[in-house]
């Protein structure tokens, strides 16, 4: 084995076979590193045993921060720092603060959530991604098995992948 990680790649061309394949591969005791697909395959994350993303919670918290910031800012500016009666309204009428509060809530929720998504998924313009197979962004689904985290031997893994419905089984090292 050469230096660096070595991977076995199972190439699939059908999402139904892939979903069943993921289950059978995991049942055979082979640990799957990741599955790369050209489009979101629903149910794949369950098959792989991933936990549900907590991004909705992140979005909510950022939204709450936006609401608080917006209300504090408006009350501070209009009531404390420079109170003025405009159009006969109270110094700090809550109803007229709602539009700006709503907009800032949405703004912070969206940017906070998307920013978090970029950070946790390691998405950045200067990223040098490991592309296992260029066809994984075109029309094939690629199941990557990391040899260093698996105790099962190479020929066995290849057999399991073939049995799961892979149309090709390749090796790749980085």
């Amino acid at each position, binding site marked *: 084995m050469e230096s660096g990680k070595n991977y076995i790649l199972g190439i699939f061309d059908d999402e139904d076979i892939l979903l069943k394949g993921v289950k059978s591969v995991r049942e055979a005791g082979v640990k799957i590193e990741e599955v790369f697909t*050209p489009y979101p395959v629903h149910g794949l994350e369950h098959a792989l045993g991933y936990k549900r993303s907590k991004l909705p919670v992140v*979005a909510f918290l950022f939204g709450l921060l936006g609401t608080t910031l917006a209300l504090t800012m408006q009350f501070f*500016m209009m009531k404390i720092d420079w109170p003025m009666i405009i159009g006969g309204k109270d110094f700090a009428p809550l109803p*007229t603060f709602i539009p700006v509060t709503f907009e800032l809530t949405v703004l912070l929720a969206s940017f906070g959530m*998307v920013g978090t998504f970029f950070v946790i998924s390691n998405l950045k313009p200067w990223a040098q991604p490991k592309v296992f197979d260029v066809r994984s962004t075109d029309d094939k689904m690629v199941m990557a098995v990391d040899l260093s985290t698996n105790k099962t031997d190479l020929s066995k893994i290849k057999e399991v992948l073939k049995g799961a419905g892979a149309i090709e089984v390749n090796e790749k090292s980085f």
Partner: protein
Amino acid sequence: MQVTSPVRDPLVTGGKTLHDITNDVCRQVEGKPTLPWMGGMAIALGALSIGAYALVMTLWDGIGMWGLNKTVGWAWDITNFVWWVGIGHAGTLISAVLLLFRQKWRTSINRAAEAMTIFAVICAAMFPVIHMGRPWLGFYWALPLPNAFGPLWVNFNSPLLWDVFAISTYFSVSLVFWYIGLVPDFATIRDRATNKISKIAYGALSLGWVGGAKAWERYEAVSLILAGVATPLVLSVHTIVSFDFATSVIPGWHTTIFPPYFVAGAIFSGFAMVLTLMLITRHVFKLKNYITMTHIELMNIIIIITGSIVGIAYITEFFIAWYSGVPYEQYAFINRATGPYWWAYWSMMTCNVISPQLFWIKKIRTSIVATFILSIIVNIGMWFERFVIIVTSLHRDYLPSSWAMFYPTFYDIGVYLFTFGLFFTLFLAFAKFFPVINMAEVKSILRSSSEKQPIRR
């Protein structure tokens, strides 16, 4: 899992495979610019240059270059602003609302519609900025920044300030939503790229996306939440735009029907513009298998619905003006229909109320030529709607001694032309360098749309 419908028409025709989708969409990005594209770009840049002259002169000499007067202080500038913002709304509607409603037909048109949103909002936002006269001071007038006036802040009671927040939030959230959707497709182009420049450019744009299952799960969570927050955002933006008028005391503006009526009008004009652009795009880029007659027909049905809502709103306004018993209000509406701007009012009525009703006829609804013509008529009508609301209400208000007419100057028209040039330049650049169809999403519905779609592997 494959769930097919035996009754629905396929959303992608022509027996396409996943690989065909990649090829068809990337062809435009990877190939040389075509002749129709270069022609379009030349016209757009021409309009942009002529318009730029009008814009520079407006900024240099001030907005006195426009045909405004003491009575009609808002005319083409705010008409164009509301019109462009309205056009922008369809993009978010298609990508957000239809996503929440699980409407799969949105997938082939959402990308271009969102691009249209972003470019339309850029054009829209220019008008409030220019009409300040000295836009370089606008930062202090419009944003809550500590400034040279002492600790005097912007007025949070004013709908004009709400607009600042609404439009800028809308623009930035739409931009992010659009970009998130583009990331997987950029990765596809990066992996196919053969020359160094596109490898680097699309590599940076794709942010290192490889399409792992975990990333897709997060991506879908993000899209759904963005759709969830963008939906009320769309409604809020045009509601707030309508507040610019509705919270004032001008007869013809001071009405509670404005928020829903403006939102319906925005969807109406937005879908018309999507149709105008998509019909050209599908023809020039040969995407007839992706933007099918089903898509066109569904969009036409939305035009019938929103056009009818707009029609009802016009009639309700008239009724309420009479029913309120306020003579100023009654006069404002009679003046709209029979006063010096009667031609604008009746153009609006013909284009917006009568013409979309033609789509009830299946033959018209499924005709490319008729759809294209009607989509343009609707956009003209919606421009007149904003013009009628703004100018006819202002030109004759409470004081007959100050009654006046508005006549546009070359500079009014020129700045409008500038935004047209800008919009089409940006849209054409988008169509050439970005995938106009969301490949990843179309691939995900390829097999689930209909049994009639043959599956080839």
